[in-house]
């Protein structure tokens, strides 16, 4: 069959495209080991692992990391509850407001982040809410709902219907049906959605600059270093660690939803 072999030109274009997407990230890995600490000199004059030790001993990095993890964990928990509720309502029946609900869930991520950020900030100002851990969470949970929702709604679409009816037919009431049929069937989708929400929150910077006040999440810390570099090698090491840390939940989410209709992550 002639359509089974790709033309050479297409192969080259696709290969170059993939290289364009991956080489810059790989470059970060090289820079994490450079001995040069004043500039971004290429090729690196020498290689060392000493910056890992230096970074390990930096309290500001640990504080930023800890804040990011806590914010991401709480935002993910909130997003899981809200996203699942929304998905359940939308998939359960056809009601008039379905599209409105979908739109409302998607809006925080469809509009540019700066709009979400500045809206929240001016609302906090108007309502006299001081910036805190919770103002960051408020923003993050809002845009994390959509990834949980997207994953859950796809799975609900496959699950509900006759399985729920079969369970009720066999004597299970609504709560038992949720516990024994719905939950086990959507669990992997929720786990995948939760992982993606965590990654999204862990990485978010645009909205956070507006809702964080004086506190620094890891991305805010990185942004500071980008605008006003202090110790470049430490930034390199942190960047590399961030790449590795965000890859893990993505791989996990991918393997959890592999082979289903919708694979996780398309709705970022």
């Amino acid at each position: 069959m002639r359509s089974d072999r790709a033309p050479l030109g297409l192969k080259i274009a696709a290969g170059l495209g993939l290289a364009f997407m991956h080489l810059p990230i790989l470059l970060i890995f090289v820079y994490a080991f450079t001995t040069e600490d004043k500039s971004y000199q290429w090729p690196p004059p020498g290689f060392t692992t000493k910056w890992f030790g230096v970074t390990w001993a930096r309290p500001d990095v640990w504080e930023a990391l800890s804040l990011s993890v806590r914010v991401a964990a709480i935002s993910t928990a909130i997003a899981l509850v809200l996203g699942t509720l929304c998905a359940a309502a939308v998939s359960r029946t056809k009601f008039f407001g379905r599209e409105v609900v979908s739109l409302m869930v998607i809006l925080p991520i469809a509009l540019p982040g700066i709009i979400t950020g500045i809206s929240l900030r001016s609302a906090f100002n108007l309502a006299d809410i001081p910036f805190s851990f919770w103002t960051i969470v408020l923003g993050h949970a809002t845009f994390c709902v959509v990834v949980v929702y997207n994953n859950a709604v796809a799975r609900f679409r496959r699950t509900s219907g006759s399985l729920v009816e079969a369970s009720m037919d066999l004597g299970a009431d609504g709560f038992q049906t949720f516990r024994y049929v719905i939950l086990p069937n959507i669990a992997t989708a929720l786990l995948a959605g939760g992982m993606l929400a965590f990654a999204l929150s862990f990485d978010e910077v645009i909205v956070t600059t507006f809702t964080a006040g004086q506190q620094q999440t890891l991305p805010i810390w990185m942004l500071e270093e980008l605008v006003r570099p202090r110790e470049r090698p430490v930034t390199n090491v942190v960047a590399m660690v961030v790449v590795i840390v965000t890859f893990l939940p993505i791989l996990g989410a991918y393997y959890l939803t592999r082979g289903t209709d919708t694979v996780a992550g398309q709705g970022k």
Partner: protein
Amino acid sequence: MRTSAVRFDGVSRHYGEVRAVDAVDLDIAEGEFFAMLGPSGSGKTTCLRLIAGFEQPTDGDIVIFGETAQGVPPYKRHVNTVFQDYALFPHLNVLDNVAYGLMIAGKPKRERHAAAEAALELVALPGYGARKPSELSGGQRQRVALARALINEPRVLLLDEPLGALDLKLREQMQDELKDLQRKLGITFIFVTHDQGEALSMADRVAVFNEGKIVQIGKPEDIYYRPEVPFVADFVGSSNVLPPRVVEKMAGQWSHASVRPEAVKLVDAGIGADGLHATVHSTAFIGTATRVSLDLDGFSMVALLPKGARIPDAGEQVHVTWGSEDLHLMDAA
């Protein structure tokens, strides 16, 4: 008279303008094998879902063993369903699928697994408990769904096109098995199908549905030989429906009438003077017989000629006759 298992008193189910079920009256006796037959969208499946409790009637009342089902959720009805797509729980293995009803009822694990094993034996699937539903064939899934629905010892079993997804040979085998099972258990089976052969061969009584209403209800022989309306004659086994003007000439009564294709005889045009004049449109060999399509004056008929009969050629002129006892007059003109 035996106890009534399920009774419909003027039950309707409307979705806005659409009348899925329209003022249906029905009485199904205990221990009866009852079939609901009709084309898709005729309301038969909705009737089944109303009995199971997945749908609520917009009007009328459903009475199950003397008690109204009004406001009783599905999980409080001792009525169980075999779903068209089987609806086996994908996250549970076969044994836990079958034992689900007992698990919900709070039976201890040992007891419910023993009961599930027994139920699997009943449907000829012993030892399949550890498999996942996805590892089973269509016929095996169907048996698991049956075992699961029977574990709670329902007094009425609802079957929604349970054989629809199986291939022909398996379907015939399952028809016999279902019939045997029903006799053995002695409970009421209510069976929804669009396959008239299935309904006629298995059921004690058949209700034929069309456009949300029951158009005829009776024993399989009555439905087959004595259709009361043209729709039944046409839908059940493709009887020939004769228009009233022809029937009036032959039987002196203004009404539709039906003749089974196998009762139709063909005579050479030159020989017999009686009978209707027809032109052979086409012939087709269908194994046990030959199917002959005929063009008559303004309508068409089908004859099934047995092995050994002379098969006319297409375009040949013939006379069509039948025995007077084979002409069945219908009330509705």
